[in-house]
């Protein structure tokens, strides 16, 4: 009997991560992009005009957003090179499991970039990110779920077009805004030592968008891959 949605999704995610682990192209591209972004912002920054606590959340979420796009771009392009997507579509598994598997792999990818980029931001800007590691990890995870949910869907839509590399950011970035704003706001409050209760509202908003995006994108996905 063919696997149900979650086991099939895990098979697909494991396959994607195995390919990325062997080729490492997207991960290193995203990581280099993230680190370069941190360095460029650092040299463009005037510490006498803007405090690091004000700047760091913006830098952090700016680089996560754009470096994540590099991984999302690759998500479905690796299925296109030899039409491997046809083998997935021809398997007796649900379309939703393909989406979910891709999203899980993308989530691991984004999280891996975050794990390296967050200490780098602390190092350059001297902000106490790691002192709030647990809370920051929660914010990062919630934001990553939203970014990946939207980005995975648009990656599937864009990959069949001639302008895939341009189309993915154009489609995705407007939908990233409601994720990035609460994530950056919650991070800013966290870093400035404000009580956790001040971040709860932003986290609730983030959770609401996560739920909406995950459900809507999973429902929409089968229609994006039907010809």
């Amino acid at each position: 009997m063919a696997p149900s949605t979650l086991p099939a999704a895990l098979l697909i995610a494991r396959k994607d991560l195995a390919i990325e682990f062997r080729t490492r192209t997207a991960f290193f591209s995203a990581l280099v992009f993230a680190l370069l972004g941190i360095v460029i912002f650092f040299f463009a920054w005037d510490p006498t005009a803007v405090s690091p606590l004000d700047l760091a959340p913006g830098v952090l979420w700016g680089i996560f957003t754009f470096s994540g796009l590099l991984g999302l771009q690759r998500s479905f392009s690796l299925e296109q090179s030899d039409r491997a997507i046809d083998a997935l579509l021809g398997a007796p598994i649900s379309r939703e499991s393909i989406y979910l598997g891709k999203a899980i792999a993308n989530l691991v990818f984004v999280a891996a970039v975050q794990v390296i980029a967050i200490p780098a931001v602390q190092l350059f800007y001297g902000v106490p990110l790691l002192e709030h590691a647990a809370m920051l990890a929660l914010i990062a995870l919630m934001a990553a779920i939203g970014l990946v949910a939207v980005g995975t869907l648009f990656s599937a839509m864009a990959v069949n077009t001639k302008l895939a590399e341009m189309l993915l950011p154009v489609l995705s970035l407007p939908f990233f805004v409601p994720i990035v704003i609460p994530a950056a706001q919650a991070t800013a409050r966290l870093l400035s030592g404000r009580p956790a209760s001040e971040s709860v509202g932003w986290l609730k908003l983030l959770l609401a968008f996560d739920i909406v995006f995950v459900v809507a994108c999973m429902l929409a996905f089968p229609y994006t891959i039907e010809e």
Partner: protein
Amino acid sequence: MSVAERAREGRVIATRELGRRFGGRTAVSDVTLTLHEGDCLALFGPNGAGKTTLLRMLAGLLRPTSGTGTVAGIELPGGAELRSAIGYISHASMLYAALSARENVELTSKLFGMRDPRAAADRALERMALSDRADMPVRQLSRGMQQRVSIARATVHGPRVVLLDEPFTGLDDSGSAALGAHLAALRAAGTTMVLVTHQIAEGLALATHAAIMRAGALVRVEAGDTIDPATYLTVYREHVTHGA
């Protein structure tokens, strides 16, 4: 008609006026054909004739916009049950270049819910004489070997129907001969096949039925015992060029 009744009739593929439009363009129109267990239809036609579209409809990858059809007793466009009865092979390998041959085939056997995916993958690769290359990344294999891995992938679950879209593309003579032998063995085992190809000799060598498709329609269909391989190329050219 129930699945059991259709299966009893022995018709593995049966379509009636099957068609597909993309917007205002008709890709396939009014395709009616019947194939039984062990039949092999060689489908010829120029580029853009609608052969791949027809194959993708039979594979459950594309929804027909008109007509009806059953494959392995399941109504098109079908779902997971239909896809589990089909093996689909095309000129694209549908493999992941960074994974080994075994990993590619094993992934498919897991997705098809095989009880022992590893053993099933090993058996499929052994049938394709690829056991000694099983752990090599696909990108290091020759085009012919990749095609054999692709066949192992598409047949690992023992499908009743195998759909082949220009499988001989890019193969040298020995590769084509080996592929032909594998497909003949599949047909002998009772697998029903639809073979889309531009290579008329290879196609006819396997076929129990032959058909020519032009502008989305089947313009000539005949059973194997009435086909004359010596003159078929001429017949094909007449139909394609002059619309005989």
